[in-house]
């Protein structure tokens, strides 16, 4: 059984690699962009699910952590000349002007910085009742935008950063999404992950079973913030330009939607939902544009796709109260059971 499952997992990863290899050289840039976005949103959804779904906290600061990651990654990977061109109002501060790092270290530094910020927010608020974290994180993600708008010589203020090196490709996004998936899954399955779920289920009982609430909430919050920043860094590098306005609350809200639709507390749900929502929103873009039916052209209504999307979301929430997956997870055993038990059932029917 164990051997079979490991082999199935390895085969799937190999198939994914083959798919990326094929897509990388055969898909048009539009499709590749959508796939990149899907993988990035997978990272964002998984990181938020760890905090909000598995631990049961209410953090609304994802956009802020993404901003930290995106700006750090951008500033550390841009070349000296690119920075000079960007910062024409006020020159960039000395050490940042000359530093240029490879992509991965830049992403990781962004993640660590974001984790540190999460520590600063979490240390005072996670000792208190749940609502304080929501307020503090919401405040943080707005304040960080204002800070970034005003630190002209570090972030280039409202102008933002342009011509960020386009390091992101399918290998990076899918590779890092896979690493995030594996690490968060093994955290969730570990004793620490079970402690997080216990906190979600009943804080008083969890504490009485010896679980240090503050310490474990802080762990979940910091790890979530780390991966949110990785997602932010990838996104900035994919788009090539960032500014403070990009990281408004709506960004957090979108990730939250993905997590809720997939199921709070389901890794599988977050992955499926990240792909479905991201790709779906792109394909629904048709609705915003005018449609030429040959004899008549229907004018597009900007924003219509969001209306349709909201409608779909409502359907999901009404018919699947706990999202698509609830807290259920995919496993090879379940998949194989599903097929084999169905067959058995049919055989019985024939016999009767």
């Amino acid at each position, binding site marked *: 059984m164990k051997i079979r499952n490991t082999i199935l997992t390895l085969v799937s990863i190999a198939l994914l690699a083959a798919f990326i290899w094929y897509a990388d050289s055969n898909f048009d840039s539009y499709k590749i962009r959508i796939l990149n976005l899907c993988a990035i949103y997978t990272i964002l959804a998984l990181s938020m699910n760890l905090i909000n779904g598995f631990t049961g906290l209410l953090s609304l600061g994802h956009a802020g952590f993404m901003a930290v990651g995106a700006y750090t990654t951008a500033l550390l990977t841009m070349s000296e000349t690119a920075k000079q061109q960007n910062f024409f109002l006020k020159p960039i501060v000395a050490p940042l002007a000359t530093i240029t790092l490879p992509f991965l270290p830049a992403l990781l530094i962004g993640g660590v910085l974001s984790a540190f910020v999460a520590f600063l927010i979490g240390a005072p608020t996670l000792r208190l009742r749940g609502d304080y974290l929501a307020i503090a994180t919401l405040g943080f993600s707005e304040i960080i935008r204002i800070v970034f708008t005003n630190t002209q010589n570090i972030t280039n203020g409202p102008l933002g950063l342009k011509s960020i090196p386009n390091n992101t490709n399918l290998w990076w996004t899918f590779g890092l999404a896979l690493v995030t998936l594996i690490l968060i899954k093994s*955290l969730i399955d570990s004793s620490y992950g079970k402690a997080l*779920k216990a906190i979600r*289920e009943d804080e008083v*009982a969890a504490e*009485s*079973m010896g679980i240090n609430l503050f310490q474990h909430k802080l762990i979940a919050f910091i790890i979530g913030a780390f991966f949110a920043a990785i997602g932010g860094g990838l996104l900035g590098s994919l788009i090539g330009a960032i500014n403070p306005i990009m990281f408004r609350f709506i960004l957090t809200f979108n990730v939250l939607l993905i997590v809720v639709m997939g199921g709070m507390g389901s890794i599988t749900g977050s992955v499926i939902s990240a792909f479905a929502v991201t790709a779906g929103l792109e394909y629904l873009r048709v609705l915003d544009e005018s449609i030429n039916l040959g004899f008549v052209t229907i004018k597009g209504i900007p924003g219509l796709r969001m209306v349709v999307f909201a409608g779909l979301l409502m359907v999901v929430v009404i018919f699947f109260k706990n999202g698509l997956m609830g807290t259920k997870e995919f496993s090879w055993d379940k998949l194989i059971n599903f097929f084999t038990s169905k067959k058995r059932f049919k055989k019985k029917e024939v016999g009767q």
Partner: protein
Amino acid sequence: MAILKTDAITMKFGGLTAVNEFNLNVEQGEIVAVIGPNGAGKTTAFNMITGVYRPTEGHIYFDDKKITGLKPHTITKYGMARTFQNIRLFKELSVLENVVIANHLHLKTNLIQAILGNTYPDILDVLWMPKYKREEKKILEKSHMLLEKVGLIDLKDEKANSLPYGLQRKLEIARALATNPRLLLLDEPAAGMNPKETNDLTNFIRQIRDDFNLTILLIEHHMQVVMDISDRIYVLDYGINIAEGNPYEIQNNDRVIQAYLGVAEDA
């Protein structure tokens, strides 16, 4: 030596004094009961002892160590575990997971070791097993043993809240035992049990006391259980400790009889 001692603990909620200068003394290996009418302050006393509430006044000593005001998780780590009057299981998790979680406080591997240990493929376990996995295996074995002990092993994969109340109480006990306690506090263990389960409860509690070398402090309304099992009994009424003694003394204590006749018996 007293394993647990409270020194005039008092708990006030606004104008209400739920527990008033309660002195409790529990010796190693004893089974001690706290009884009293509903609202007498028994659960509040438990909540102070286990750190859920900080006493308004007074002090609590566990093994002669002052634990007043410490967090529940710290007190649990010292060797005190409890169950809850209104069952507080991790409802959506499985029976087995409920017990496994209660081993977490003694985990020796750190977070990084746990994450990396869990990524290590199972099929290579025969060659070498990461420290975390070895520890997890031990925890699983211990959890299975505990579930076997309370008779829930066949239901280990069921969701905790799908069990009937009587079994949920047993699961709470198994979960509490998983923290390796020396002192176990049971808050109305017979509530929700059927007559047969209630009858078995006395033996069950003695059994776990002997098997795990426990001292037991319990709150119970079921008088037969209390009188059968207790070495000593404390009686609370409106937060005041009106009597203390062995079952015979308590049964013949005038103040106790009055307290119980004064209010409707709810056992």
